């Protein structure tokens, strides 16, 4: 049974409000730079809706004691708004979702965090980045994205995959469509496929001096940008990534209730899993309280829990710290935990300490796209056009 700790905010309005207040200040800082732009009615509405949405979600996480459902609401919203604003921006600048040889020659391709997995080995050997992007300046410059990746790895480990990744919300959303999954039994061994993908893409990219995952596999090119089809090879690449999007982001998550793309394909997820080892936060199972019902095993969207993991008292390194197992456990035996501290003490404090950096990451990534997206929708309602 969960004890009513001093740090627990569940069911307490005043404690939840008190702990939400610092997050309100952080939301104002990161969403509006401390000074919201209220110059037009559209911008005012966009800011207010975003501010209320983000504040309410955090308050509810604290007040209800449930993490996953509110986290997912923000996370899925991030995926949708990011894709919308990215595509609209591309169409405004280039007239299409495609990039062409001019963009590559001019090093104008935005640097996505997944590319990090493919640049490490060549960077060590050639002391350069094998990506046609800009080091500083422009949208998603290489230096700024690498700073984000390193910072997030240290702060949250693979928690990035549940709180910050602007792609993960897609299969997080599709995995929740069916209340009861059609395919129930999945061998947890599949969680290791992404490590094999990481190994192969890192090596092949190094030899070819070309980020092959981006070139051939990334399913999220379907909702961001992709190469203009000018040859049979590019056509094949397009078929591959669209098929992977359909299979791993839509069909299989709907049928299994699991985040299949993130679990089995994403090499960045595998790399982030390794950083779970150096991260201060993890998820633990209090074996004194656990009754081995295995509801957590069924609930985990990334196959990070198995009987062996339960016996070991912790999920595997693939755990994305989404909180779904914690919310599912009726005995409150699964908890957010700070490494080096006892498992059965101060778990509410550990949860609160984890929630701040995790939710802040969501705020940083969602704030801008959500405001821009709301303005676009208002434009659509007013003028009938999404893009002017």
């Amino acid at each position, binding site marked *: 049974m969960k004890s009513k700790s001093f740090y627990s905010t569940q069911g307490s309005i005043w404690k939840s409000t008190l702990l939400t207040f610092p997050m309100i200040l952080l939301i104002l800082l990161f969403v509006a730079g401390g000074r919201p732009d209220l110059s037009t009615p559209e911008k005012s509405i966009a800011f207010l809706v975003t501010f209320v949405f983000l504040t309410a979600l955090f308050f509810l996480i604290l007040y209800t004691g449930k993490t996953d459902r509110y986290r997912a609401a923000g996370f899925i919203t991030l995926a949708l708004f990011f894709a919308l604003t990215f595509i609209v921006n591309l169409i405004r600048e280039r007239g299409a979702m495609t990039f062409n040889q*001019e963009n590559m*020659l*001019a*090093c104008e391709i935005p640097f996505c965090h997944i590319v990090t997995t493919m640049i490490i080995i060549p960077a060590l050997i*050639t*002391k350069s980045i094998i*990506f046609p*992007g800009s080091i500083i300046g422009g949208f998603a410059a290489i*230096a700024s994205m690498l700073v984000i990746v390193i910072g997030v790895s240290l702060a949250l480990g693979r928690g990035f995959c549940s709180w910050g990744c602007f792609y993960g919300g897609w299969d997080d959303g599709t995995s929740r469509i069916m209340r009861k999954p059609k395919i129930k039994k999945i061998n947890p061994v599949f969680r290791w496929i992404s490590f094999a993908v990481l190994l192969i893409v890192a090596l092949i990219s*190094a030899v070819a001096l070309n980020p092959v995952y981006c070139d051939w596999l990334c399913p999220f090119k379907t909702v961001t940008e992709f190469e203009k089809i000018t040859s049979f090879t590019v056509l094949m690449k397009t078929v591959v990534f669209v098929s992977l999007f359909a299979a791993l982001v839509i069909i299989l998550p709907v049928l299994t209730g699991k985040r299949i793309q993130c679990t089995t394909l994403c090499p960045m997820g595998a790399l982030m899993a390794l950083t779970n080892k150096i991260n201060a936060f993890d998820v633990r199972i209090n074996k004194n309280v656990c009754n081995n019902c295995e509801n957590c095993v069924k609930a985990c969207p990334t196959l990070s829990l198995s009987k062996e993991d339960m016996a070991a008292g912790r999920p595997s390194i693939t755990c994305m710290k989404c909180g779904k197992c914690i919310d599912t456990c009726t005995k409150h035996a699964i908890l957010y935990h700070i490494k080096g501290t006892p498992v059965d003490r101060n778990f509410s404090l550990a949860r609160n300490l984890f929630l701040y950096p995790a939710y802040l990451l969501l705020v940083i990534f969602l704030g801008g796209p959500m405001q821009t997206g709301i303005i676009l929708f208002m434009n659509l309602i007013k003028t009938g056009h999404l893009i002017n």
Partner: protein
Amino acid sequence: MKMAELPFMKVHPIYSGGELNREYKKDSLIIRVNNPVDATLFGGGNQVVQVTFSRKGQLPGLIDQTIDYNFDNHPDFKVTINTISGETNLIPIDKTVESLWLSSKVKEDWVIRVNLER
């Protein structure tokens, strides 16, 4: 930004085009030939060379040039570029020249990258 100043924080020459070798004027064009860059991880394998064509004002509708990329006084390849349609034809002359990799207008210039075999 300190991160941008780290030694490895530069785009690999296979994407940035490499360093300029020589620039010369020919037929109202300014032709810039870069140094060939290694296209393999440890070097010693295939290479890529970038050539940039520019002109004050607009580029001509047709660029038809023979290039000596290593300046050994032997022509290496002939390139014909229709700058309106973008159609580019590369005819290798020297056996080190393999194929055309990229050809596109970049701002006011036309840039090609050619695959070389060692």
